[in-house]
């Protein structure tokens, strides 16, 4: 049941709600699962100095990012009793309101999915070399920074 092999994490553009719904659907054959936990990162229309963000354009150091995603997966499977784990992150332009990060963990029991999901999301934010250019409605930009 464990699908530990590395897979492609990056997707060009936004992650659609249909893709997420379909990913949930595919897990309904895995009848040892009792609990799923899903994190979605959505692009906010932040207002900075009277200018409103209209999109974020993501780039990444892809080789290093894939290595880091792999390390995070291995660490999470080691620490938590997970049935499966999926991570998807956008590259390129993602408009406000669209989804740029989709993390999906599943386990027989619920306690473990809460801990595992937070661990994975925090590790992605801290350790994966992904860069985000916040594009304002007037086409100027600034660089996003995780905290």
């Amino acid at each position, binding site marked *: 049941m464990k699908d530990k092999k590395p897979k492609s994490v990056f997707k060009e553009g936004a992650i659609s709600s249909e893709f997420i719904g379909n990913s949930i659907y595919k897990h309904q054959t895995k009848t040892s699962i009792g609990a799923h936990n899903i994190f979605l990162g959505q692009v906010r229309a932040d207002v900075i100095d009277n200018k409103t963000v209209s999109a*974020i354009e993501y*780039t990444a150091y892809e*080789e290093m990012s894939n290595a880091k995603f792999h390390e995070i997966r291995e660490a999470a499977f080691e620490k938590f009793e997970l049935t499966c784990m999926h991570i998807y992150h956008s590259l390129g332009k993602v408009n406000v309101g669209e989804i740029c990060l989709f993390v999906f963990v599943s386990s027989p029991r619920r306690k473990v999915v809460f801990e595992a999901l937070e661990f994975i999301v925090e590790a992605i934010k801290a*350790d994966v*070399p*992904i860069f985000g250019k916040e594009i304002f409605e007037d086409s100027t930009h600034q660089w996003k*920074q995780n905290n």
Partner: protein
Amino acid sequence: MRITVRYFGQIAEITNKEKEVLEFSGHTISELMESLYSKYTLLKTKDFQVAQNQELVALKTELTGQEIALLPPFAGG
């Protein structure tokens, strides 16, 4: 030593390129950075980390790698 240096995000805006191949004779990451600072003076004003062969390294680290990357603050998610 032949080194590929990669630039990302706001760092690539300053260098105006995403990658370059340098012939370099220094021995540490720090020496390489000094060389890049003199080439791209605005680099000094920016916050970044350095990766050697896809692992973050300190400035005093010995330069062994084929690929060095200058990584501005991460913004994943």
